[in-house]
Every structure is written in structure tokens, then in C-alpha cells.
């Protein structure tokens, strides 16, 4: 195929797709055009509702039954995919064009071993005989950097970690030696350290297989790290398309600029400001430019007709009338800090002492029968203090125990041993009564879709905590309106059901509920991770305002270190049920690092293609919490393991300096000599 003239592997011309829904016709894609050459990675970035997955499914000819291609063409190696007969399509799909989905767990057959599963793909497409297929499967596993392919080939999907499963899915996609590989959010469900390895793999594959890759993600930083060229989708339109370096350094479309400014940049190099407004209703698209209602550079002409694609530079186009002005405008900078960063050490409002939580403790009967399995060590012997008025962030990958710790602080779980005491900030008195505790300590959950009862209206949701606290009915009605106003929603929202709200609006309601009782300590359990980039910063603003108004203390649980760098005063880094490092933001982001913190920091992609941080690779996977490793829990994956001491002796948290604590056997002097992982750029005031 590569021998032919310079024909693009994939050519999409003015593609429009719409969905028939009871509310009317949703125009999910409108006149999207793009080309991808062989050996090139084209990144598509967009928020939810931008149509990025619709694009992928349109190419795969796998759209939902209520979808209709309203116009345009999709050419694959010169052949029109939209006009292809079903059997011709079958020969191409899965072989010449392959797709990697977001959730590897559902893409793999749980009842089939990995080896036969890959071999099956080869046999279906008659690419190998039966014995040949098994051997080729092993080759493919090796190609995606899976250690010990024969062992993995014998495993069932559930025996592999998420990162490993995704590698297997990629191996299957590569089985037919595809000319086009579509990757739809392939790292979204994975931890950062695992994500870093998958991104490395994508970069390697581009050199090795020469396929064109369409990489779809909501995460601009990931797109910046993998793509040669990038397209930005907004409300079904490709608003800008450019070589990666151009797009990230000199964005032309106001939406692209807005998106980049909305990111919490880990190196504090960019602003962190929301894009105002919300995605337009796709059944009633605005007359002119689709971004006009939210644009900072709006002029009359913008609302009259859809602007044409303007040529900004070589292979750089933007659908904007005012791109020259937008491009020339100085970058927006706006420092956002959730924390007070006062420096003075306030008294503790919550003290966590030797807190341990084991799930699934075997009962007396199973123990007597000898069937007992060891319990899950969700949290082991954690001691820390939350100080009055601060923002303490708890970070770590999935399974590190941060959510368990948050729920223990809230008394939603009973500890296996140890204790949490909460004190009033003013009086210093310990909170003992249950009613007082529920009033003073509150929580905001990660996903407002599930934390708001879908059958209850906003007014009822906000009324309930007040009713529990015994506020009289008339005062409650007033207070509910006040709360709604405080989270900047108008009274029209009172009688809506959660499903009639956008993600950001739902989270505002959840925040209003948490603040209804005037709390002093609020646990924020990943409050931003279910939100789109453009609305994250506005929720942060809201949290900042509420905190200063109430003088509240936050425990901010997050896996996103970029966000934490902007928002926290202090950080506790957790790994497999233990706190391995604790200190102020500056202390944690500068050497000495705990080796795990170092790996974590280096794994974070930044939205700048010219910055490729040297990644510290973490080998293997997080060990089972049922059988945590002896000694230092990180020793099985630590790149700078000393030796037996790490396997046998548990490192205590030792003081590095001032307020900085580390749990590592490596002498502090050695750790101090290491170079910083992130550039030490200072935040502008």
C-alpha cells in the first residue's frame, strides 16, 4: 500500500452526521474535513458532546441505528467507505481499519484466554493458519511491549491489569496490519503511570508499523504528547486543525485558546480559567459561528453565517473570522489558588491517628474452616493532621486508599483500628454528637450523576440537609434560594430534575448541598474529574469563594497532580494504603522526592509538544492489596530500590525539613541531589 503515490490513508470530506431523537434532529457532526497520511498521528481533541466518538464510529461504519450520514465522503486508501457493500466492509473493518476502545475490559471476551483471542482475529481474516496464528499472537504481544508473552497468552483478561488489557486490545488491533488505527480515549480509564507507558507505546508503534493513527481524547495534554497534527472539535465542527507545535504554541481559534487556558497546567505556565457559557443545544445550533455565544472576540459578523475555514498558515486552518485578532491577543493569565497558603501553622481540625481499614475481614467460620483469605488492606496505619483553614490534597493512583481515607474521616466507614477526631475551629472542642458532626463535616462526591438522586428535584435535594438539622420550613425555603444563588444558578433550577442539568451544573448543586449546613471541614472526593475542562475552573472559583466565605477547611482527594499543584496548600502522596510523602506543594514538587512521587510527577503529560518530560518508568503493576509487599510497599516497582532493607523493613515517615515528611530508606542527602522533575517556574501573581 505504501508504494502508491502520496495518497492520504484517510480522507474525510465535509462529513455531516445527525441523530434522530424525540427532541429533534441532533447534528452531531457538521462538514468535518480532514486527511491523515500513513505513519502520521492525527489527534482529535474535544469535550463531551463535541462529536469525537461519532467521528470514530462513522469511519468504522458502526453508527447507532438512529444516526444518518447527512452528507460528505470518507475515503480510505482512495475507496469510498460510505458506499461500500457489507461484505467488502467486513474485509476492511478489523483488518485494514482497526479500532481501540476506551474500556479494554469490555473489548475483550472474558471467557477466552488472551492467546486464542488474538489468534481468532488472525483466523477470521485468514491471515494465518491455526498453528501460525498462535505464534503470530505471541509476536503481536511482544510488539506491544508485553513482558513474557507466552504467560500472558495463557491468561484470562481478568487476570491482567488495565494497562496490560489495553496493550492486548492494541495487539489485536494490530493483528491485521492495519493501514488506519483509530484510538478512542485509549488511556482514559488508566492511571497516569500506566498512561505514560501506553503513550510511549503509541509513539513506538508509529515508527514500527507505519499506519495512520487517529487518536481521540478529551485530554489536550495527551493529544500534545502523541500527535503530529491536531484537530479541535467543538459542537460537531472542526474549528481548528494544525501541526501540533503550531496549535499548542500559536492557537488561532478562540475556542482552542480557551481550552488551553482552561487547563490546570502542572508547571503553572498557563492560566486556569473557565470558558463561560455552555455547549449549545445541538438540535438548535446558533445561526452563525457555533462558538459565538461563548467567544471573547465576538463581533456582529460572527452571528450572521457560519464562518469559512480560514488559512492561518501551512496546513493550519481555523473556522474563525477574527483569528488574526485572537492570535495576536496576549495570553490570558489568571492565578487560581484554592488554598490560603498563609504559611502559619494552624491548629488541627481533624487528626487521623494510626488509621487502618481492612475490607473483607474473614469471619469466624471461614477462619475455622481454613478458607479465610487475607483481607484487603485499603488503608494501613496512616497518621496525619488536617489543619484549620488549609487545603490538604490526597493524591495517588486508583487503589491507594485516598477515597477510603476520605470516607473514614466522614465516618461513612468504621475503621478497623485507629481513630479520627474532628475539632471545632473556633473553640477547639471535639465534635462528638452525631448531629453536630453531620453539620460540620461534609462531602462532595466525584460524580454528580450518581451523587444526586435522579428522582428528586433540586429544591428537594437542597432542602433535605436543612430539614435534618431541624431548620424550620420557612427558613429552609429562603436558605435553599440563597444556596442556589451562592453556586450561581438561578431560581429556575429549583424545580428541575438532575437529568435536565449539565455536568457542571449538577456538580454545583452537589456543592450547594454540601455547603447547606455551613460546614467547617469539607472532603472533596475528585470533584472535578467528571467535568469537562471548560467548566472545571469555574467550579474551582466557586469552591474558592465558598471556602473564604465560610473559612472552611478542605480535604481535596484527586489523582490529578496538575490540579493539585494549583489548588492545594499541602499534599499527601499515597501508595497502596500508606502515606509515602507529606508536605507543602512546593516541598512535594521539589527534591527530595519519594521515588513514587518522582515517578508520578514525571508521568504527567503537559499540553505542550515541545516539553517531553523524561518519564520514570514504573515496571509491573500495583501489587494486590490483599497481599501487600513486605517492608516498603513500593519496593516491587521502585526504580531506585536499595536492596534487602527495602524488602524487609518498613520505612518510617521521616522529617526532610520543616513540614516535609518522606517514607524512604534512601538517605535524604541522596534524594536531595536528584534533579527536579518539573521546571521550577514560579506562578505569576
Amino acid at each position: 500500500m505504501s508504494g502508491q503515490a502520496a495518497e492520504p490513508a484517510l480522507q474525510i470530506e465535509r462529513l455531516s452526521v445527525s441523530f434522530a431523537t424525540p427532541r429533534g434532529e441532533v447534528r452531531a457532526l457538521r462538514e468535518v474535513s480532514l486527511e491523515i497520511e500513513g505513519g502520521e498521528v492525527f489527534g482529535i481533541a474535544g469535550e463531551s458532546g463535541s462529536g469525537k466518538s461519532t467521528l470514530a464510529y462513522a469511519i468504522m461504519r458502526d453508527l447507532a441505528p438512529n444516526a444518518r450520514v447527512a452528507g460528505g465522503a470518507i475515503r480510505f486508501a482512495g475507496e469510498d467507505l460510505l458506499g461500500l457493500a457489507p461484505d467488502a466492509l467486513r474485509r476492511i473493518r478489523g483488518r485494514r481499519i482497526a479500532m481501540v476502545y476506551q474500556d479494554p475490559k469490555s473489548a475483550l471476551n472474558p471467557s477466552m484466554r488472551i492467546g486464542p483471542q488474538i489468534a481468532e482475529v488472525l483466523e477470521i481474516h485468514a491471515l494465518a493458519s491455526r498453528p501460525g496464528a498462535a505464534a503470530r499472537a505471541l509476536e503481536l504481544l511482544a510488539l506491544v511491549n508485553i513482558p513474557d508473552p507466552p504467560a500472558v497468552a495463557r491468561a484470562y483478561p481478568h487476570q491482567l491489569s488495565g494497562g496490560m488489557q489495553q496493550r492486548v486490545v492494541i495487539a489485536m488491533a494490530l493483528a491485521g496490519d492495519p493501514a488506519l488505527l483509530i484510538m478512542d480515549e485509549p488511556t482514559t480509564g488508566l492511571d497516569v503511570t500506566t498512561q505514560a507507558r501506553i503513550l510511549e507505546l503509541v509513539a513506538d508503534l508509529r515508527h514500527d508499523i507505519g499506519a495512520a493513527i487517529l487518536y481521540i481524547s478529551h485530554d489536550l495534554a495527551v493529544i500534545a504528547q502523541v500527535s503530529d497534527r491536531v484537530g479541535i472539535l467543538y459542537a460537531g465542527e472542526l474549528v481548528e486543525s494544525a501541526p501540533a507545535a503550531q496549535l499548542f504554541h500559536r492557537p488561532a481559534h478562540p475556542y482552542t485558546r480557551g481550552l488551553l487556558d482552561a487547563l490546570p497546567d502542572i508547571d503553572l505556565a498557563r492560566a486556569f480559567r473557565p470558558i463561560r457559557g455552555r455547549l449549545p443545544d445541538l438540535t438548535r445550533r446558533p445561526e452563525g459561528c457555533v462558538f459565538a455565544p461563548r467567544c471573547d472576540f465576538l463581533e456582529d459578523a460572527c452571528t450572521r453565517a457560519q464562518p469559512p475555514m480560514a488559512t492561518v498558515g501551512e496546513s493550519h486552518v481555523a473556522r474563525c473570522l477574527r483569528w488574526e485578532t485572537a492570535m495576536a491577543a496576549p495570553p490570558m493569565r489568571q492565578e487560581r489558588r484554592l488554598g490560603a497558603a498563609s504559611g502559619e501553622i494552624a491548629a488541627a481540625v481533624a487528626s487521623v491517628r494510626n488509621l487502618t481499614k481492612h475490607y473483607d475481614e474473614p469471619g469466624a467460620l471461614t477462619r475455622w474452616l481454613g478458607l479465610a483469605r487475607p483481607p484487603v488492606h485499603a488503608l494501613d496505619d496512616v497518621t496525619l493532621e488536617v489543619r484549620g483553614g488549609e487545603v490538604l490534597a490526597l493524591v495517588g493512583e486508583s487503589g491507594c486508599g485516598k477515597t477510603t481515607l476520605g470516607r473514614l474521616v466522614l465516618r461513612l466507614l468504621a475503621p478497623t483500628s485507629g481513630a479520627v477526631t474532628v475539632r471545632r475551629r473556633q473553640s477547639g472542642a471535639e465534635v462528638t454528637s452525631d448531629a453536630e458532626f453531620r453539620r460540620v463535616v461534609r462531602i462532595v462526591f466525584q460524580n454528580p450523576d450518581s451523587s444526586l438522586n435522579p428522582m428528586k428535584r433540586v429544591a428537594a435535594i437542597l432542602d433535605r440537609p436543612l430539614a435534618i438539622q431541624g431548620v424550620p420550613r420557612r427558613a429552609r425555603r429562603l436558605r435553599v434560594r440563597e444556596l442556589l444563588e451562592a453556586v450561581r444558578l438561578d431560581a429556575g433550577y429549583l424545580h428541575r430534575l438532575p437529568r435536565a442539568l449539565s455536568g457542571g451544573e449538577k456538580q454545583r448543586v452537589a456543592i450547594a448541598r454540601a455547603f447547606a449546613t455551613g460546614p467547617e471541614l469539607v472532603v472533596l472526593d475528585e470533584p472535578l474529574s467528571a467535568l469537562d475542562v471548560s467548566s472545571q475552573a469555574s467550579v474551582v472559583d466557586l469552591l474558592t469563594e465558598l471556602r473564604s466565605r465560610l473559612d472552611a477547611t478542605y480535604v481535596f482527594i484527586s489523582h490529578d497532580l496538575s490540579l493539585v499543584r494549583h489548588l492545594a496548600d499541602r499534599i499527601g502522596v499515597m501508595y497502596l494504603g500508606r502515606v509515602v510523602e507529606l508536605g507543602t506543594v512546593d516541598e512535594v514538587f521539589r527534591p527530595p522526592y519519594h521515588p513514587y512521587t518522582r515517578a508520578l510527577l514525571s508521568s504527567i503529560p503537559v499540553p505542550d509538544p515541545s516539553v517531553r518530560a523524561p518519564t520514570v518508568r514504573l515496571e509491573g503493576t500495583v501489587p494486590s492489596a490483599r497481599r501487600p509487599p513486605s517492608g516498603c510497599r513500593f519496593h516491587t516497582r521502585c526504580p531506585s530500590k536499595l536492596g534487602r532493607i527495602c524488602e524487609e523493613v518498613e520505612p518510617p515517615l521521616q522529617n526532610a525539613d520543616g513540614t516535609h515528611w518522606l517514607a524512604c530508606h534512601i538517605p535524604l542527602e541522596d534524594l536531595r541531589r536528584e534533579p527536579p522533575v518539573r521546571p521550577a517556574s514560579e506562578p505569576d501573581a
Partner: protein
Amino acid sequence: MTTITRAVRANPPLAIGTLILACVLALTVLAPFLAPYGVAEQSILDRFQRPGVKHLLGTDQYGRDLLTRTLFGGRTALLLGLGAVALGLLLGVPIGLASGYAGGRTDEAVMRVVDAFLSFPALLMALMIVTALGASTAHALLAIGVASAPGIARIVRSQTLAVKHEEFVLAARAQGDSHAYIMFGEILPNLLPPIVIEASIRVGFAILASASLSFLGLGVQPPTADWGLMIREARQHIFLSPWPLLCPGLALALTIVGFNLFGDGVRDRLAGRA
């Protein structure tokens, strides 16, 4: 007009089921005004009349007007069907909800008892209860209600298990809500769709069960108008005139089909929305 055709095309079972139930409901509620004769009005001279001008659907062995008795029989059927299911819900919903919410050993224990009840055919259980208590309309209602409770409890429990792990339940606990409020105020509203589907299909079944009990002489007693009873009495004279058998039989079938279509339609409607 267009909205009706659209509703029928979008969900035929729901539209047809609703139509049938609306007709049945209207006819039975308005029975005293619609019926041309009194329920118990006998006319020995007019026994076993065929449908005609004087008696639209004919008469039975005592010369009672079949149209009148079929209309009034619908009242008994609906009363028994709806009443029994209401009783079943009253018993089954709290049991299933509490069992699923409590989980663990409590759930295990409750569900084994429920399983034991479920292992009897519901009609057989109703028969046992009526035999023990004596034959009467009230006892039939009680028997069918109690017999339908275990099945309802099972459905409610399984739905509770799915809902109780949602974060809004945790959020309710985090703000100090009582277990009773969480069960009835937070979880129960989310169970209403499956409960409505289950209940509407069970009403059809309960009507059939009550007719069966009456047919066996263990439910509604003469001279009350009841479809099951009418079939029982007509059976002996089937070769003299089929009309006393056909009228209540068709009414019974139509009503049950109506409830089943309605239940299926609601289920499809909710599944489509999810």
C-alpha cells in the same frame, strides 16, 4: 388525531393496553348508569335468551340480563385484582426494600423465607389460605394479596441491591439521614418504574386468580355478580346456551390482556428512555 396515531406507532402495546383499560374502567365505574336492568333482577320467563333487542347480550338461567351482570362483574374483578395487588405491595415492598438495604445475613435469612413461599404455586397458596379461613370475597382478596407478596418482595429486593450502591445513598448517609428515610425517601422513588410494571402485570394475574377461586366456589359468593362465578354457573348449561359462558369469559380475557399489554408497554417505554 396525529398525536394518537403517533402514540400508537411509538408504542403499540402501551396505547392498546391503555385503551382497553380505559374502556374497562369506564364501563365498570358507570355500570349502575349503563346497565339496563338491576343486577339481581330475575325474569324466569326470559331464561337463556339469545342476544336481542330486549337483552343485548342475552340472559342466564334465571333470566338475569347478561350485559348487566358482566358490567357489574367487572367491578368485583377490578376491586379484587387491584385490592389484592395493593395488599401484595403493602407487604412485599417493605420486606424487599428492607431486606435488600440491610444486606448480609438479614437479607439471606429473609430471602430464604421468601423462597420457601415462592416454591408454592401462588394459586395453590391462595387456595390453602381460603380453605383455612372460609370462602368469602374478603378472604379471596387477602389470600391473593398474601400469595403475591413474595414475588413482589423478590423484585423489589433485587432492584434495591442495584440502587443502594449509588453515591446518592452514601451522600444521604453523609448528611445524617436515617435508614428509614434512605429506604423510603431516597431508594423507593427510584424503584417506582419496576414496581409499576410488576404491579400492572400482577393485577391481571390477580383478576384471573380471583375468578378461579370464585369458579371453584371459594371466592365471591352468589348472588354477587362476578365473572368467575358466572362461568361456574354457566358451565352446567353450556349446551343450552353458550352466552352466559362467553360474556364473562371474554370480558375476563380482555381485561387481563389489557393489563399485560399496559405493563409491557410501560416497560418498553422506560427501557427506551434509559
